[in-house]
């Protein structure tokens, strides 16, 4: 009966092929198109692999000269904006969010469960329900196009998420460690900084990764709160390639690859944290 097992293995393997095709066909085509000239991209029948590989689409974005139109020229600025904003959101959320998560999981003060459930509920409130008042107040404070307005508003989804993930992580920290430190005369804050935080580094790393990816991905707030090319983040910059009259397809492809590379690499490096984070946080679909 050994051969039946073998046939089963082969059949199962054959079933993975369409899945691999579905996963990789779009990205590989995107990559191939980003290396094509405009002429070759529009050729019929389709050139799956460009005959003349060009890096011009990337060069236009990374080293813009005067000849290029304003959208690719500012793409590098958008990349910097995105890095700046996503990192700031991550750092701020990690600090204040893990404080809150610790208080909620480990210091009983009577409202732990209520506040934790409240935070879970706010995590699910859609951005569109927050945008109008935030937009009105940001306009009146002249904060439109300032990175700070995105950093602050991104916390509406990033902070509850951080608290949620860190709370799940702190629950796995053995309470005996804290009790021992407490008996040694350590204060609550001392326990948090000297005992709990150091052993929660894996949790902090995986939470940081999720929050960074969420902030990198964010589109709606960035679309509303930025109007100048200099203030845009990467997702908005990519949408900008679809101009009113012309669409810069090659630029959009190269820009798309550049926007996708950082999160994909981060996710692949930290892949062993991803599934546990997904189940604990279950938020980024």
């Amino acid at each position, binding site marked *: 009966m050994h051969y039946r097992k073998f046939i089963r*293995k082969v059949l*199962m*393997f054959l*079933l993975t092929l369409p899945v691999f095709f579905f*996963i990789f066909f*779009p*990205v590989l*085509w*995107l990559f191939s198109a980003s290396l094509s000239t405009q002429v070759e*991209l*529009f050729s*019929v029948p*389709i050139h*799956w692999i460009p005959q003349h590989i060009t890096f011009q689409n990337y060069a236009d974005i990374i080293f813009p000269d005067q000849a290029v139109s304003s959208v690719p020229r500012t793409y590098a600025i958008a990349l910097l904006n995105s890095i700046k904003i996503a990192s700031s959101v991550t750092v701020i959320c990690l600090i*204040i*969010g893990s*404080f*809150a998560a610790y*208080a909620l999981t480990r210091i*009983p003060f009577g409202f*732990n*469960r209520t*506040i934790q*459930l409240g935070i879970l*509920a706010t995590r*699910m*409130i*859609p951005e*569109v*329900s*927050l*945008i*109008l*008042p935030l937009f009105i107040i940001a306009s009146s404070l002249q904060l439109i196009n300032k990175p700070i307005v995105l950093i*602050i508003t991104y*916390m509406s989804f990033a*902070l509850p998420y951080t608290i949620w993930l860190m709370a799940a992580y702190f*629950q796995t920290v053995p*309470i005996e460690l804290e009790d021992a430190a407490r008996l040694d005369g350590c204060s*609550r804050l001392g326990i948090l900084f000297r005992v709990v935080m150091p052993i929660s580094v894996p949790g902090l790393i995986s939470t940081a990764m999720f929050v960074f*990816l969420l902030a990198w991905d964010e*589109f*709606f707030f960035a679309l509303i709160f930025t109007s100048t090319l200099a203030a845009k983040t*990467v997702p908005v910059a*990519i*949408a900008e*390639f679809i101009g009113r009259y012309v669409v810069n*397809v090659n630029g959009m*492809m190269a820009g*798309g690859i550049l*926007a*996708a590379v950082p999160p*994909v690499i*981060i*996710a692949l490096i930290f892949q062993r944290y991803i*599934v546990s984070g*997904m*189940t604990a946080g279950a938020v*980024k*679909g």
Partner: protein
Amino acid sequence: MAVNTKSLPKRQLTLRQQDARTAWLLLIPSLVVILGVTLWPVISTFILSFFNAPTGINQVRTFVGLENYTDMLRDQTFWDTIGRTLYFTVVSVGLELAIGLAVAQLIHSHPWGWQFLRISLIVPWAVPTIVNGAMWRWIYSADFGALNGLLMQLGLINHYIPWLSLPNMAMNLVIIADIWHTMPFVALVLQAALATLPEDLDEAAAVDGANAWQRFWRIRVPLLRPAILVALIVRTVDAFRVFDIVYIITAAGPAYKTLTITYLTYLNSFTFGKQGTGAALSFLISLFTIIMAFVYIRILYRPEDS
């Protein structure tokens, strides 16, 4: 995820008070932020939904009571949009669950390369939503798209088709793009859940003569129910508020055939200059979300867990 209050020994009252003070101190920064960027805006939006609030300088808001809501409920566009949004939600979440479960089971049966398959799933998940949308927009392109190129080479079509201009196709094409991006999440969560199931149940059923198909549906799927429900709710909440991917692929076209509820809210608030209507619409989206959140909490906090 119950907060464990019992395992802490009872201490003197002063110590408890000190603890409570520390807790609030640690919580205050987060609570202030959540109050400022979430609670206040939500309440404020709700209040705004009772006003006629045109956009622009020197525009005066007038209280109109429930008019924004009654106008909305009388408007055929609203109901069409709800219908389209529900169609998107049901079809994309349904297919994501079905494909995700199948892929999870496929990985679970450990064919050659299953580890590579599991890592591969991370790629579509990590690609930003807007890049995903842009990518599929060009795959569907009428002039040079990969879909046309592929179908042409396979001999299935003999001229390029403007896929995204076909009124009955556009929404389905957006759904395919959405599935590419979000199915991996479902597959990875369900695969992780499958890996934790006890194997002896499965083996016992096999001894009793249950075939692989029966074991999958009668044993594994019922045991996976909590994981499936969590994935279902998270994805439903997300899908119902879909915006980014529609914006980039079709911009609600052709002829508003892919207009979803969040998109309609966006148009009212920022293009048509009807903030009151936008606020009323976004309140409805919140309401749906809150109901789903409630269901979610009920599932996560079943009595036997606490």
